[in-house]
């Protein structure tokens, strides 16, 4: 599948890719350098139907350490690769899944209050799901093959596969 974007479309998509990548990279790095950060609070307060599963993750210190490690490095790698345009499609989907995991812990449904909600008022839709949707778009309209390292890995001029 060979996509042709107009210059404006390509600029818009690459800009979106960089913005989302920047955000995820900073989320990951800031957690990495914070000796006190842990996902324990987030997991143990989680709501909705996955609550018991997520809470059980927080209860075991070894599992929790694993969750924290995977979370931090997923954010850093996904963020870096999005900015660089490396394996764009794969990391877009990965990022989307990661964000959906955050979302299901505290979906802003009627009757569910999240202590971690910030930056506005949300009903069903919050920033997490918006960012996940953005990554879905980036996966469907990949740009790494045009502006990004994917251009060197995959045949030039073609989107990553």
């Amino acid at each position: 599948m060979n996509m042709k974007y107009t210059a404006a479309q390509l600029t818009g998509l690459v800009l979106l890719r960089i913005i989302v990548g920047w955000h995820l990279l900073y989320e990951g790095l800031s957690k990495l350098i914070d000796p006190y950060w842990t996902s324990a609070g987030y997991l143990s307060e989680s709501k909705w139907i996955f609550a018991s599963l997520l809470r059980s993750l927080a209860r075991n210190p070894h599992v929790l350490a694993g969750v924290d490690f995977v979370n931090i490095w997923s954010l850093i790698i996904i963020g870096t690769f999005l900015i660089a345009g490396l394996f764009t499609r794969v990391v877009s989907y990965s990022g989307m899944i990661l964000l959906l995991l955050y979302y299901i812990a505290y979906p802003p449904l009627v009757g569910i209050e999240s202590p971690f909600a910030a930056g506005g008022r949300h009903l069903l839709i919050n920033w997490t799901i918006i960012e996940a949707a953005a990554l879905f778009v980036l996966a469907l309209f990949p740009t790494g093959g045009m502006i990004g390292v994917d251009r060197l890995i995959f045949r030039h001029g073609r989107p990553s596969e």
Partner: protein
Amino acid sequence: MENERKYSRRDIIKALATLPVFGLFAFEFLKKVAYDRWKKKAVLSELDLKRPAPAVVTRTSPEHSGPQVRLGIIGFGRRGEQIAQSLGFAHPDWIAKRKRNNRLEPWLAQKDLNVAITGIFDVFDVRAGYAQTVIKNKINPGDGSPVEKVKRYRSYRDMVTSDDIDAIIITTPDFHHATMAIAAVNEGKHVYCEKCMTRTEEEVYRVEAAVKAAEKSKGVVFQVGHQTTQNEVFQRAKEICDKEILGKITLVETSSSRNTPDGAWVRHLDENGNLRPGDARSIDWKEWLGSAPRVPFSQERFYNWSKYWDYATGLSGQLFSHEYDAANQLLGLGIPLSCVASGGIYYYKDGREIPDVFHATFEFPDRELTLFYSASLASSRPRRRVLMGHDAWMELGEYLNVFADTHSTRYRAKIRDGIVVPSRPMVSYQPGSQGIDAITSASEQYYAARGLIYTYRDGQRVNVTHLHLQEWLDAIRGGTPLSSPIEAGVEVSIACHMATKSYRESRRVEWDPVRRRIV
């Protein structure tokens, strides 16, 4: 390679076009890190605090290589069972429940204190039998081998004279503490006595005299069950107080807020509302009453003894004693000069004698400070311990926060420069943020929020009672210092009894330091 790609300059430029973003990112990121560090350093150097220690504090007490200590437990009610758990002995049902909830591991990781519980005394057959199951259980932390034989004593008098026992833990209702503690130390037994150390003022002096004499003549080690100070947060709070970061402290506010029947000592019913076991045949009522006024057997009094003056001092001895101990150890308050207490029975119209809403104000003119305690058993609105100084105030519970005062003299410049924001904590300390454990019951939550249950050592959540007992055992084996010795026990119990006396006599009471009496 045949399909070797040839990249044009255009390809290279387009492939690497976004890489400069990393430069900008790195620049901004490092700027942010440097800014945060600078701000933190500016605050910490001003306060002469080192960078907050990581969440893990290494245990400093010696290893338990000394001889095994043979313990006797008097009273195996709820607290007796908790003490046994802290020592490494638990009931199979409790273990199974913990296992189901994924919470057994921290307990199994608890240090083996190298003790044997060789004797148990409880007036209630059911609890005495239960205690034996607990003590004989084979699943223990470390390689502690449970004793096969545990003797059930029919009287505490036999236990204190027994040669099979080195040390005694008293976890009975408060009115027995003094008699039992005195009997035990007179026989040269080390004693760990639960709070409140005594029920009456007069008993304080008798226990003090007996313990001091036994310390001198028999080398007895006596510790009161005020475990709060073992909390890591508390140790950091002490550093903050010692460094006078708060400025001149003139007001200390402490409180208790609970809102469950269990928290209000209505404990004769189980979770399903059924009467708990126990009758005149299975409970040695005469022994239970001891020297208390004779009354017919009463299950209500047996389970809910905290509600009656004959057996305890209610909020003052049960909960305030911890609060006073905390403030006393932070600030070295000693005994207050005066106390005014008030309150009433406003919610639990169940025939209780002790108030369910209770407040006490203590004055320390020498220290130029007031300590205020406020308690309710009918509202669980959380109120943290707060130490208020001219320059800053400190909230202290499971974590601690220090906020600069908007009108502080010392931090004026830092507030003006935006380095310190009064609405946000200047110093914050949250121990063990790398791990979490679930806390279930409301009463447990009450204690946990006040730092009475858990603290962190070596990255593990550790029961503070375990640490407090360990400190006592270390002192028995190696003469190491105690955090709640008799002197602290006297100060705390006198403060509690001042509040009780003031409430019961509806008047301001004072401490006469010369005659050493509450007047």
